[in-house]
């Protein structure tokens, strides 16, 4: 595995990055026909700016992960799980994702899409001896198929009007508004299911955490972006000219996903589950920006629509970077301490200083704090929403700032969530023997984490370069280049105009560093430079021990109480025979009971009705076949 698969992955990733970057920068449009597919359905591929961007994103994350994977999979070598399966399905998974973004026809797209879904199912169930992994895999497989079906139907609507499965034919077709909206709804359901939008997110927090960590990084960091790509390609490229009503739908669904995702992330104690819920939040933010873009383009503000679109693409890129970093960091913690429960960690920063530093940078980025990358894309989203005054409708003028306030709430709770994650896992004192014995991870893993955090910093400090690069995509899809955003040189980011808003990330970063340097220089030079080490304050009762620290459950308690109406929270305190009280807390996703289980029961009940057909008598079966045949013949003729 380490000798063959990982170098191959690296080579493919380098080609993807180079090809994607070239396509994005030169705004190429290359087409080719692969010798696959059926004689009347050739398998066409095309590399343009949009697919180039996503190809580059896939390649970049894959490339950095190849430094991480060799050391990480080493511990599976002595285990009972099959490494060739892991390597093989990872390869197929990557190939599937690259083919999805390159496909230039519904046929190639759907086949690649299913290859991606199926291969990732096998990666989720890699450690299949655990029942929860099999359950997660089953939910994932089920929902992936429902979603795939919906996308297929969406393409079906398009193909009916375009008279062909090639994307060119679909692009040329003009759909009546009703049918266009139906196609959009089907696509939103299908791609939204893969992206993890509320309320069709249930598979995501189950499936992402149980895969090996570098696969979780690929699934959360990259596969969700492929779903975003699917929606972009379908709505902005094939359907074209999104209606403002679609924008409202995207905005509301995105806001609900962002808020619910981050609130559930706050409640988790499993580090990887927390990160998976945070992916729901970030996908919500991307969809909010897309919704703003659709709203503005539907009401005749192409420039503002472009800013929203760029914000969405920028956040997709950022999320790929910091979520991969965080999942790999969680993997490093898992590697070092074999713990996924936050309440068994603590004090890891002093035992794993490099991992600790890189994960800290990831936490700052993901909490949308300046000067890191998460802030830039949220800033752009805010700037788009604040142009609401250009709207004619009063309701929209109110709706936009309110969703912006939801975004602010999401960002603030995200900061609380990652203070919790970092403070409980990396700071304080070790809460278990495993955490006490944790050691720094090998160089390859640290190198990968370090490169991801460097990317987060660079994407935060040099936004103008990124945005001028994204101009190719917006030019292709919306005919706008967003020239004014970078018109004042590389130092200044001015999305609407210099008078409306400007942000100079390099100068602000330099200023902050300068003030830090001066403060440190002035104070460290004084007479008393020495620092004395002592015990922490103990209120006069003797040294507090590690069990007296706040736990992840305790940290989230105020938040749990304030937002208690949104969760199914069950708390109980029981005393066992030795009179030791035991506190148990269970939090459920309320949608699971109110949405999924009723659907499940409905399917069960209808299955019980249909089972009556299965009498075991061959003659009756033949009768059914004949009836079906007759009906089909009647339909065709």
């Amino acid at each position, binding site marked *: 595995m380490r000798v063959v698969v990982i170098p191959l992955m690296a080579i493919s990733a380098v080609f993807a990055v180079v090809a994607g970057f070239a396509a994005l920068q030169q705004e190429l449009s290359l087409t080719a026909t692969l010798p696959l597919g059926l004689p009347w359905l050739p398998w066409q591929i095309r590399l343009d700016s949009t697919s180039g961007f996503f190809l580059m994103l896939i390649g970049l994350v894959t490339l950095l992960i190849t430094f991480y994977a060799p050391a990480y999979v080493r511990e599976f070598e002595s285990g009972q799980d099959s490494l060739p399966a892991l390597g093989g399905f990872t390869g197929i998974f990557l190939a599937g994702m690259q083919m999805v973004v390159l496909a230039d026809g519904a046929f190639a797209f759907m086949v690649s899409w299913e290859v991606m879904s199926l291969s990732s199912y096998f990666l989720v169930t890699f450690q299949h001896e655990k029942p929860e992994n099999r359950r997660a895999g089953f939910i994932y497989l089920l929902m992936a198929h429902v979603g795939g079906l919906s996308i297929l139907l969406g393409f079906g609507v398009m193909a009916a009007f375009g008279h062909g499965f090639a994307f060119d034919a679909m692009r040329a077709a003009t759909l009546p508004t009703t049918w266009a909206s139906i196609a959009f709804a089907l696509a939103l359901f299908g791609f939204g299911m893969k992206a993890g939008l509320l309320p069709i997110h249930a598979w995501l927090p189950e499936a992402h955490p149980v895969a090996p960590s570098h696969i979780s990084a690929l699934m959360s960091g990259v596969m969700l972006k492929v779903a975003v790509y699917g929606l972009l390609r379908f709505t902005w490229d094939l359907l074209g000219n999104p209606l403002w009503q679609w924008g409202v739908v995207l905005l509301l669904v995105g806001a609900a996903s962002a808020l619910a995702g981050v609130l559930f992330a706050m409640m988790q104690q499993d580090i990887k589950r927390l990160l998976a819920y945070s992916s729901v939040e970030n996908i919500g933010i991307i969809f909010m920006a897309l919704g703003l873009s659709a709203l503005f383009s539907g009401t005749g503000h192409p420039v503002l629509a472009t800013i929203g679109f760029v914000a969405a693409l920028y956040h997709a890129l950022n999320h790929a970077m910091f979520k991969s970093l965080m999942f790999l960091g969680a993997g490093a913690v898992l590697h070092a301490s074999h713990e996924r429960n936050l309440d068994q960690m*603590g004090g890891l920063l002093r035992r794993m200083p490099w991992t600790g530093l890189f994960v800290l940078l990831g936490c700052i980025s993901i909490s949308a704090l*300046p000067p890191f990358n998460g802030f830039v894309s949220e800033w752009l989203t805010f700037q788009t929403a604040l142009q609401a005054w250009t709207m004619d409708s009063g309701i929209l003028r109110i709706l936009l700032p309110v969703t912006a306030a939801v975004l602010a709430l999401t960002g603030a709770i995200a900061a*609380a969530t990652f*203070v919790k994650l970092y403070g409980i896992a990396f700071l304080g004192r070790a809460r278990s023997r495993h955490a006490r014995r944790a050691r720094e991870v090998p160089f390859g893993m640290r190198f990968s984490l370090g490169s991801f955090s460097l990317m987060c910093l660079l994407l935060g400090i040099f936004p103008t370069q990124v945005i001028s690069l994204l101009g190719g995509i917006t030019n292709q899809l919306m005919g706008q280049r967003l020239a004014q955003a970078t018109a*004042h040189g590389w130092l200044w980011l001015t999305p609407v105009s210099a008078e409306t808003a400007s942000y100079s990330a390099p100068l602000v970063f330099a*200023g902050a*560093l300068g*003030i830090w340097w001066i403060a440190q220089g002035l*104070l460290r030079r004084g007479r008393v430079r020495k620092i004395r080490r002592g015990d922490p304050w103990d209120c006069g009762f003797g040294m507090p021990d590690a069990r007296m620290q706040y736990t992840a459950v305790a940290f989230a308690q105020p938040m749990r109480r304030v937002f208690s109406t949104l969760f199914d929270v069950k708390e109980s305190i029981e005393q066992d025979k030795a009179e030791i009280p035991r506190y148990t807390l269970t939090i459920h996703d309320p949608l699971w009971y109110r949405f999924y289980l009723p659907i499940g029961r409905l399917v069960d009940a209808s299955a019980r009705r249909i089972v009556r057909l299965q009498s075991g008598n061959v003659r009756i079966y033949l009768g059914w076949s004949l009836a079906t045949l007759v009906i089909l013949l009647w339909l065709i003729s």
Partner: protein
Amino acid sequence: MADLLNLKEWVAVLGQLLMFALAAPMLVAWVKRVKCVLQNRKGPSLLQPYRDLSKLLKKEVRVAHTASPLFRATPYLVFSAVLVAASTVPLLQVHLPTTALADVIVLVGFLALARFFLALAGMDVGTAFGGMGASREMLISALAEPAMLMAIFTLTMSAHSTNLSSVIQHVLDTGLLLRPSLLFALLALLLVAIAETGRIPVDNPATHLELTMVHEAMILEYSGRHLALMEWAAQIKLLLYGVLISNVFFPWGIAETATAPALAIGALAILAKLVTLGMVLAVSETLVAKMRLFRVPAFLNLAFLLGLLGMLSYVILETSL
């Protein structure tokens, strides 16, 4: 767009930064002084916070065995983040080159960055107090931030700009009278400022070692120059909110040109505004008792509703004209 090579403007920025840093302890002392007078006590001198800071700067630093390097870096980081935020709030004159570098959303972002590290440092030593403070601070800020941005959105939507200089210029040009949206935004921002700077009724800066403390719980383990920086940063933050509220909502007197007489009037004006605002704060702290933690969400929801009302009245009353 700011002219980066104009040395005079950068001198103004540096001067403003120094003024923020040097005047901040005075505002805290003034509020304390007025409170003492209202409570029939003899208050400390207005110079007392300076004496405290210089004493702390001279003292030896004591750090817990269990602390990580993050604990020692945080005071510097918090201090510089708050100062970066302060450098973007016009103090004496409307036009400041740094407002183009970082708009009001970046300002909120830098305050959030400072808070993020403050909370992490609280959890670093591994005592129950630190975790308690961090958990509560993050709850309060999570509810305060949307309210603050709602108030700011009202302002920035009516000014069509998130640049603070442009916002102040817009308020100066149009006037405050008969603008219900600004009034609601002002009330919302006042409530948020109380929560964010840890004043009564949300947090009590005078309490030590009580189970109600929030900010003090997080910095409990700090000593010496580290503590001095943390306290100083908190004082600058209070001044920042004071200047933000006075100059955005009551911009009268602020210098529109960088001439000596205009700047002198600007200095007198901001001084008068801060003295008044400090008195308002002292009176409200004397009249209102500290709240239980779980009543703070209602307080901040009120702030958010006021911000929303401001936005509604802007959209309904002021744009349809």
